[in-house]
């Protein structure tokens, strides 16, 4: 297996070629924009929040395979989660990416995300994988403060 094949695992390419939850939400609770100044990649995350849960999520993403795949998997993982759960999922993912080099085993429902571990070898690209997540976290923070529910944090 070449280096590249280890990075671009099948799951990643599948999400890259067929990104889930792409598009816009017409009346989202919040919309948050993220940019990677190093490469210019951009993403917009739309979420609609219902009783403190992510009822729907859509991404308008233009980026590299890692960025796109990470966002696509993220949208599947957090859709339906409570805001609190989603924040926790994000932190599990970020810990995996920023932690040491060993392979991490994720809970079954987050299994797909394990495929992104190959990225850890490439410091520059870790930022690509994190962009959708950081943008989501900003969206959640906005939603909470709109809701006056920041005491929930």
């Amino acid at each position: 297996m070449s280096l590249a094949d280890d990075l671009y695992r099948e799951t990643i390419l599948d999400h890259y070629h067929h990104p889930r939850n792409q598009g816009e939400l017409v009346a989202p609770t919040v919309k948050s924009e993220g940019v990677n100044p190093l490469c210019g990649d951009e993403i917009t995350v739309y979420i609609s929040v219902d009783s403190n849960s992510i009822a729907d999520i859509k991404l308008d993403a233009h980026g590299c395979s890692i960025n796109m795949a990470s966002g696509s998997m993220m949208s599947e993982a957090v859709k339906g989660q409570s805001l609190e759960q989603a924040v926790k999922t994000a932190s599990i993912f970020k810990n995996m990416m920023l932690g040491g080099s060993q392979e991490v085993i994720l809970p079954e429902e987050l299994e797909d995300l394990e495929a992104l571990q190959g990225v850890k070898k490439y410091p520059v690209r870790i930022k690509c994988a994190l962009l959708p997540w950081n943008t989501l976290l900003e969206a959640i923070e906005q939603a909470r403060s709109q809701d006056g529910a920041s005491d929930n944090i």
Partner: protein
Amino acid sequence: MIDVQEIRKDFPILERQVNGKQLIYLDNAATSQKPRCVIQALQSYYEGYNANIHRGIHTLSEEATSAYEGVREKVREFIDAPESRCVIFTRNATEALNLIAYSWGRTNILPGDEIVLSAMEHHSNLVPWQLLAAERGAKLVYLELTPDGLIDLEQAAAVIGPRTKVVAVTMMSNVLGTITPVRELGNLAHARGALLIVDGAQGVPHLKTSVSELGCDFLVFSCHKMLGPTGVGILWGRAELLEAMPPFLSGGDMISAVWRDRVRFNELPYKFEAGTPNIADVIATGSAIDYLQKLGMDNIRAHEIDLTGYALGRLSEIPDATVYGPGDATCRGGVISFNFADVHPHDIGQILNDAGIAIRAGHHCCQPLMRDLKVTGTARASFYIYNTKEEIDLFLDALQEADRVMGHVACR
């Protein structure tokens, strides 16, 4: 013609392996590699005569001063300028452009004035003018490109007008490779009483340069892109302009007398060099210039036309590759920006790196141009004196591999 195999022996880094493969360095527009003589110049300086310059009476300081000032003269000759006192050492091309924008710009740009840039400027020759324009109530006006990436001279003649105070353009695009018709733009600018500033960051390392032939009023460039160490930029300006300009950075060395409440500035070039200069790197820059002069800038250019023509030809055989910029290697430099099918430039860069090939991917500090091209970024391969056609072949082979790895996006 230059002897590339001989040249390669002078560049120790070319022996390096990356991911088990011999390094193929095609990121020269970002920074060039350094020959042994440049690295050696640093070592000789620090081991033999390191000292602060200009005010020292001891031998080390005299030796360092004369080596440092000797490079000023070498630079003068290299850009065919009349006087070495008009050669100012800065940190990089960016700082040199800021020096002009602060010192000349703040004294000369008035509300309503127009600053003309091209659509392919690097952020370093754009943001300083944006900030100046915002501060002064001046306006930025852009020179547009023709579909094949050349400056549209007709449009230029139309927009360089009575309110134009300065035209600031790159000598060669770091994305498209386009060589700017500097002389023609200079004539248009001067006819309107405007100045011409040339950003030579990409041009000077690759094209024989004469400030009088270019007909420019200021020229800036960065030595790290022309075999020199990091940390040295050059500003050249016409003597009358530099003499009339207030200093930019102030402090030690740029004064002739200081009182508690007033100061008399030093003469050129010292007026613009405040504090301890980057002595070692300026001295090593002298070795870089010697090396280039020995090869001959015309020979370097011929080699790059050869490589660029070859690469453009081979890329044109790849149906899914889109190449930006002029198709004719004789009116462009050896910087080739491209996209390949739907593979994101970042992914191309990564996959080529697995094969030991260093290219750049992204917006190349030219976001406005990226928007014009309707892309978020491009992949970019750029050549210099040590690159070969064999390397270009390997690069193109690896590019095809990218298509396989990414699951044949090309054919989606």
